[in-house]
């Protein structure tokens, strides 16, 4: 049962494996060096793997630890991650709450709204952790999860997306760092001798000055003392907070369900338009309807001569072109169009020129400018 023997046992040791006696079957690590301990998140009672196999293989059974009558299933037994089972339990609960409360700060309109949301989340976690109104909290949590199922899954998808992006980013950074390191190693080798020299000099200096090491120790002690004091103060504060929360546990039971308030409105991208093969440029003639046949003796041979027809020459294209040419320009009123154009231009210029004469001069200049531009093109 010596420590050295255990460490010779198989594989790396997990936090839960330090105990040497199984509380259920009392078997010892001395007899079974491969012993592993498992816990069930239902009650977090620890027992060895062979006990789990023995008791729960036939299906759900009651926890064999005296005073705990919870029904456990073999499937949920697992090795613990943390040494302290309280922490193990807290992490489990937090993870469970976080699956329902998975909004980001960026989803909220104000910081206050986000903080209120975090408050709700923390109250639920605290209740489950400390066993305050567990049933009510569980009910509210389930209702909350059901009500916000859509947004929760959307948030999940978003989180996965950012995570993959982050992974890619870190991978790129690592690669960059590796390249930088490779470059730096060369520089390091060069400066190594120099640094060693400096180090040796420093040691010599310390050896010559006898008082200095003592001073350093004192300094170190002071700093550790300061650190422990700060930690104590923080612990005290935490305890006070917990007490305050314990004094008002009923706050959360007042409203029936957790509500997310102050969320930014979700803007969905507009649905894609149907694909238009013509690219929105198809047009139909307004002033005439194109017919598939126009009678004219001149065209008769073009309709029948195999030398023309067999090559694919299509009179309909000719009809189309002549009709368009015949009706071209109908509905175009150049005076009106140009007048509107001039007016638009004139309004823009008026803001800058005060007198009528100046406006006319400016218009002339603009005309000249336009003419010059047309000349280039």
């Amino acid at each position: 049962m010596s420590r050295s023997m255990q460490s010779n046992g198989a594989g790396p040791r997990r936090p839960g494996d330090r105990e040497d006696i199984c509380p259920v079957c009392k078997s010892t690590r001395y007899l079974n060096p491969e012993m592993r301990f498992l816990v069930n998140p239902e009650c977090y009672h620890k027992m060895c793997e062979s006990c789990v196999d023995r008791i729960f293989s036939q299906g759900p059974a009651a926890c064999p630890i005296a005073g705990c009558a919870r029904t456990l299933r073999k499937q949920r037994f697992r090795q613990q991650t943390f040494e302290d089972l309280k922490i193990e339990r807290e992490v489990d609960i937090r993870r469970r709450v976080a699956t329902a409360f998975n909004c980001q700060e960026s989803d909220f309109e104000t910081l206050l709204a986000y903080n209120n949301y975090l408050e709700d989340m923390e109250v639920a976690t605290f209740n489950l952790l400390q066993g305050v109104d567990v049933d009510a909290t569980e009910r509210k949590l389930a209702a909350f999860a059901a009500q916000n199922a859509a947004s929760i899954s959307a948030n999940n998808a978003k989180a996965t997306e950012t995570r993959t992006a982050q992974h890619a980013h870190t991978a790129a950074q690592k690669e960059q760092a590796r390249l930088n390191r490779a470059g730096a190693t060369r520089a390091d080798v060069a400066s190594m001798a120099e640094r060693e020299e400096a180090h040796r000099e420093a040691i010599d200096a310390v050896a010559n000055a006898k008082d200095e090491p003592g001073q350093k120790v004192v300094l170190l002690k002071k700093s550790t003392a300061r650190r422990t004091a700060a930690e104590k103060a923080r612990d005290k504060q935490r305890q006070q907070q917990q007490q305050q929360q314990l004094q008002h546990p009923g706050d959360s039971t007042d409203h029936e369900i957790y509500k997310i308030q102050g969320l930014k409105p979700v803007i969905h991208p507009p649905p894609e338009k149907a694909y238009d093969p013509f690219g929105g440029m198809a047009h139909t003639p307004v002033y005439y309807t194109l017919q598939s046949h126009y009678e004219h003796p001149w065209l008769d041979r073009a309709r029948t001569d195999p030398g023309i027809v067999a090559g694919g020459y299509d009179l309909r294209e000719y009809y189309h072109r002549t009709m368009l040419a015949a009706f071209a320009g109908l509905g175009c009123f150049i005076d009106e169009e140009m007048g509107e154009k001039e007016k638009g231009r004139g309004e823009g210029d008026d803001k800058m020129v005060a007198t009528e004469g100046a406006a006319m001069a400016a218009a002339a200049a603009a005309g000249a400018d336009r003419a010059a531009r047309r000349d280039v093109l």
Partner: protein
Amino acid sequence: MPIADKKLGEGTYAVVYLGHLKADPKRLVAIKKMKVNTAEWRDGLTMDAIREVKYLQELSHPNIIALHAVFSSKNQNLNLVLEYLPLGDLEMLIKDVDGIRYGTAEVKAWMGMLGRAVWFCHENFILHRDIKPNNLFIAADGEVKLADFGLARSFADPYRIMSHQVITRWYRPPELLLGARHYAGTVDVWSMGTVFAELILRRPFLAGQTDVEQLELICQWIGTPVEENWPGVSKLADYIRFDKGNIQPIRGKEFFLSTFGTAGPVGVDLLMSMLALDPRKRSTSRQVLEHKWWTSEPRPTAKEHLPKKGGGPEKMGEDLKRKGGEIPASRGDSVARRLDFSAMR
């Protein structure tokens, strides 16, 4: 006023410069400087230059290269100021089999843009007559732009003959190979069909070395043109009598599905309508755009998500200096001689 910055490429036909606008140096343009070919055209401009200027300045469409301005420099050269399209052409994307992967949605997006460009030309009564992947430039935003109007002409009046020596051979329709002098917009639709097939296969679909070989390939892959499937075909100027025993009936849908299955049955239906032997049975460019393939699944990829390959300014220079109807020398030379194992799979 645009300022020429550096030379992008030089060919026998034109020199291409990268330039910028004097007023706004951030706006880049390509300046195509037509060479005065003293041997061939003793007086006046080349036909290509006239055609290019004539039609490009009329057309303004997102899928057709924009002609900003035309000016002449000191030795009476003609300079075209064109939209600068830095991302190469569709041929580069098709040829880069290892580097670029695309699917039906991307093919549909590119074909959709090509279809719009061709339809717009036809709607304005212009035949492009040189549609091929390396005349389809890619703009910085992924938009495909139809360029090189050096062989374009407007629709002919009845009884007016047109040249049949147009359109790069691999993309030339059977009626032109058979010497038809009266044809319509459906010649461009055939070219579109071969580009569609090339986008799917990722190699030129019908790559004949000579006009006769090209016709043989069409007979083999599409069907032999005879009076039964193309009334009046034997009256065309260069019609060849095909051996009675060697006649390939028009390929059915199963054959196309086995070769172009990735386009799906609806896509194959469109491809077949574009590659119909008889130009009268072929879809017009309007009918192509009215096909239900465009609105069926998958939806065409948005242009900003289309695969891109940095063609760079040099590639644009390379493309613009060519004369219409040419096959780049490096490409056509070895195609037939090289054994193509990819077709056997």
